[in-house]
């Protein structure tokens, strides 16, 4: 890719919008993903992504904003998942599998009911950076800033609850409240990321940069910051590569993230 090709991007409003939204999501995804990975809840991201898709399908079918549908559906699912997690006899992660398949089934039925929405839904399934509108960017920036602020304010509490729930409880922290908040923030992050990397790949952007960063054997905060940096790097490189080589942006971004992870595997300290 030449310098001219790189700067060409900034001549098009829709590409600048796509880049701003992508970079916001790049910071957001591993910021939440870090907590999911250390709590061994990486599968939660995929579950909520499929739930979001059902919300998108509902939005397209009943003519309301699909991103609002995705946000609503994933927040509802977050509450349901936390309730099931606390209920004994639900075999832990199996309940996630149940919710994932259930919401996918619902999405498929809604797609079947309105055959014409296939193309629009496709952009949420695989991501479509170039079609991100002005309003979408505004929503991603505003809600993204909200998610980051909550993480920043509650960072020590999220750390303790992720380290050990009983330690948090014994210190008088409302661990259940923080768990619910974290699951809800995950749902929100995923709903905001759908247009960028798509439902099928959003989990990857939340998890892979964290896995790569954790190969360097650093402390929590440094691993967290490195994960965000690697994610931004993946998105930047993936974004420009997809433009230059005319590839799908979501897939290219995640492909770059995987290459970075492989490099970390080879050169990391652990």
């Amino acid at each position: 890719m030449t310098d001219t090709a790189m700067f060409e991007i900034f001549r098009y409003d829709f590409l600048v919008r796509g880049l701003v939204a992508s970079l916001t999501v790049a910071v957001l995804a591993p910021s939440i993903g870090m907590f999911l990975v250390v709590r061994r809840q990486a599968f939660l991201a995929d579950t909520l992504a499929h739930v979001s898709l059902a919300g998108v399908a509902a939005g397209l079918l009943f003519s309301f904003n699909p991103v609002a549908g995705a946000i609503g559906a994933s927040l509802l699912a977050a509450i349901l998942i936390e309730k099931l997690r606390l209920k004994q006899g639900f075999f832990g992660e199996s309940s996630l599998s149940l919710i994932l398949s259930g919401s996918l089934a619902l999405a498929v039925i809604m797609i079947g009911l309105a055959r014409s929405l296939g193309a629009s839904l496709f952009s949420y399934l695989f991501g479509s950076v170039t079609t991100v509108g002005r309003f979408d960017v505004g929503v991603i920036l505003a809600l993204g800033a909200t998610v980051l602020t909550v993480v920043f304010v509650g960072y020590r509490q999220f750390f303790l609850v992720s380290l050990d729930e009983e330690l948090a409880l014994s210190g008088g922290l409302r661990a259940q409240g923080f768990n619910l908040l974290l699951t809800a923030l995950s749902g929100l992050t995923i709903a905001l990321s759908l247009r960028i990397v798509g439902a099928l790949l959003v989990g990857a952007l939340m998890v892979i940069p964290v896995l790569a960063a954790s190969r360097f054997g650093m402390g929590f905060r440094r691993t967290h910051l490195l994960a965000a940096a690697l994610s931004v790097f993946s998105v930047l490189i993936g974004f420009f590569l997809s433009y230059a080589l005319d590839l799908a942006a979501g897939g290219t971004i995640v492909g770059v993230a995987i290459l970075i992870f492989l490099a970390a595997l080879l050169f990391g300290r652990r």
Partner: protein
Amino acid sequence: MQVNSGLAIEAGNLSYGYGGVSALKDVGFVLREGEYLAVIGPNGGGKTTLIKLLLGILEPTSGFVRIHGRPASDRRARLDVGYVPQRVSSEAAEFPATVREIVESGRTPRRRAFSRRSAADREAVDHALETLEIADLSDRTIGSLSGGQRQRAFIARAVAGEPRILILDEPTVGVDHSAQEAFRQFLTHANREHGMTIVFVTHDVEFVSREATSVLCLNHSLVCHGRPGEYLKEDFLVRLYGREVKLVEHEHHDGHGHV
């Protein structure tokens, strides 16, 4: 509510059940400040349940727990108690955090969200690291430490919260014998020199008879509570554990007995 300064822990008619099955029935005892209580009993006999009730993690189905005169669920009561759980030091091996980050998390319940780290926070963390002799490991990740060093990091975490009571649920999984000995010496020192009230779940009967000031035996209900010398005899232990007791001598000179 009146705060009774002489009593560290009061438990009365304490019962708890999991899904209709009684784990603990009608347990009551009083622990004075500065005591060193060893909790013994067979596996599944309710020791961990009792600890969780004392910590306010579980709500009793009946009865009460008071910490320094306040209900166990009271925030101020929680700040009085430092906790070292059973398996955390081995399970945390994969958690990407430095020793300092772990120890600092012991201050979290004392700090408001968004507050900056105060001089008192820094001092308490440094003091805990030095007390447990792990100041030189503070920038190492816990995954790179031995089981004994990790255990000390989690005790330092509890100490950093400046508790008046330390509750330890036999945190010796994956810890070699010399590290266990150092850890027990630390507990004895904290109790004798600093007046720390200690509740320690253990199977090490010989150690209990040597160091603890009182012993509490549990097998779903309270089997005994008193001075170690009164109860730690082989025929009593056979009755408590409900089977033949094997006293295993450690290899070093001042031999401990395990059941």
